[in-house]
């Protein structure tokens, strides 16, 4: 009975979370047009000259086709921006509504699990679409692994979007932060834009693991498992912050803490 009720709550909240994404027309327009336009522009504009890329995933420097590796970084840039934006908007705009649902008795864990399920589904679809667009111009060595790598990047930024949506009080701030973070992240890791992209600092960027995995997927036959997991680690860390914020924001505050603390201070009680 309890399991059935929990399943009902999770299923209902997941359905509504997906409905919210599907009714976000700007995000859908971005998915349909921004991904192919961005990758096509990279294909048309970026030079074909070979560039060197330090692949920490296999501890080697490889020489790759500049246009192909830019299509990969362009795809990562597109999916992180779109999924980060989608998750920020949904979390930010429904913050008060979610709080009301919690007050009405909806368990936080079901609401959060539903949002994350919707995020994974949305990210999987967007990344599949981006791989299909790349494959139209060039066949990567491992398209399935490229999809997984893009998914890791999208999840990392989706988690960051959820975190910012829970933490920030202004819509513009959140949008600006996501755009800036994605620009810095990809700008520092693309070997065409930054010949010094083998710096150690890039290891601390949200899509570092995804970029390493995606380049491996594009040009090699190996599978960098640990680097693939870095995206989900970023995702989990960001979601943990969001969950804690949500928990604090929706707690029942009716019991005043200060009188208790003052009483304890007076009596010396712990």
């Amino acid at each position, binding site marked *: 009975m309890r399991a059935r*009720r929990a399943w*009902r*709550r999770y299923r*209902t*909240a997941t359905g*509504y979370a997906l*409905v*919210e994404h599907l*009714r*976000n027309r700007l995000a859908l327009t971005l998915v349909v047009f921004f991904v192919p336009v961005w990758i096509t522009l990279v294909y048309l504009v970026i030079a074909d000259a070979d560039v060197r890329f330090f692949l920490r995933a296999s501890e080697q420097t490889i020489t790759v086709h500049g246009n192909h590796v830019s299509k990969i970084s362009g795809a990562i840039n597109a999916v992180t921006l779109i999924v980060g934006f989608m998750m920020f908007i949904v979390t930010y*705009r*429904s913050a*008060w*509504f979610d*709080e*009301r*649902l919690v*007050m*009405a*008795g*909806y368990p936080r864990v079901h609401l959060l699990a539903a949002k994350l399920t919707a995020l994974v589904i949305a990210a999987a679809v967007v990344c599949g679409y981006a791989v299909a667009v790349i494959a139209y111009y060039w066949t990567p060595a491992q398209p399935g692994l490229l999809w997984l790598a893009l998914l890791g990047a999208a999840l990392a930024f989706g988690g960051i979007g959820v975190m910012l949506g829970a933490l920030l009080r202004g819509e513009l701030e959140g949008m600006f932060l996501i755009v800036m973070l994605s620009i810095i992240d990809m700008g520092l890791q693309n070997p065409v834009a930054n010949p010094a992209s083998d710096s150690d600092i890039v290891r601390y960027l949200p899509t570092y693991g995804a970029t390493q995995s995606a380049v491996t997927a594009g040009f090699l036959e190996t599978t960098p498992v640990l680097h693939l997991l870095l995206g989900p680690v970023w995702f989990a860390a960001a979601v943990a912050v969001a969950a804690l914020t949500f928990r604090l924001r929706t707690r*029942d*505050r*009716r*019991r*005043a*803490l*200060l*009188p208790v603390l003052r009483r304890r201070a007076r009596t010396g009680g712990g």
Partner: protein
Amino acid sequence: MTTTPPEPALRVGGVHRSYGRHHVLRGVDLELPAGRLAGVVGENGAGKSTLLNILAGRLSPDAGTVHCPGRLGYCPQQTVLNPAFTVDQHLRFFQVAYDLPDLKRAHALLEVLNFTGYRRHRVAALSGGTRQKLNLTLALMHDPPLLLLDEPYQGFDWDTYQRFWDLAAELRDRGRSILVVSHIAFDTARFDRLWHLEAGRLVEGAGASAAPAPTPAVPR
């Protein structure tokens, strides 16, 4: 033989709340027995919504206690809805939240508030008054013993305004306790008890002068 008086639906003692140096609430005491329709009126900025947020558990008091033994229904001043969902989708979402077996009560409320025809409309396409009807319905649909309503009739047309009071009286007669917060001391005769929020404290009886009736809104 002595009988224990029934526990009040809401008991508030010595609630204080400040925003920085601005002391909004300075010791609010309130007790609301079962089956009472009560009102709190006050000027803009008097702290009415702060008080209701504390009673609903959304805001911490700096000091004081709030005790309500049963479930409550809370209708916030601003409509808290999701513009992406239809009216029906809101009802189903809150049906799961409240763990209700069906939506008979919610559908009856739609009839009473006269917006059954909007069930398949998305909130983004509704007028302000119709959104407020849904906002109120979400607070009432689980038939809780205590209702906290913050300006519940704002944006209502005259007919819906009258229907709201009929509904409130019906709930009171069925033993529900209702606390209405409003910036206008209009229709004060409808309340069993009325407090005026003055200088951060509740004063029994209405201190405000009668205000004009709400401007009828054009229903969509």
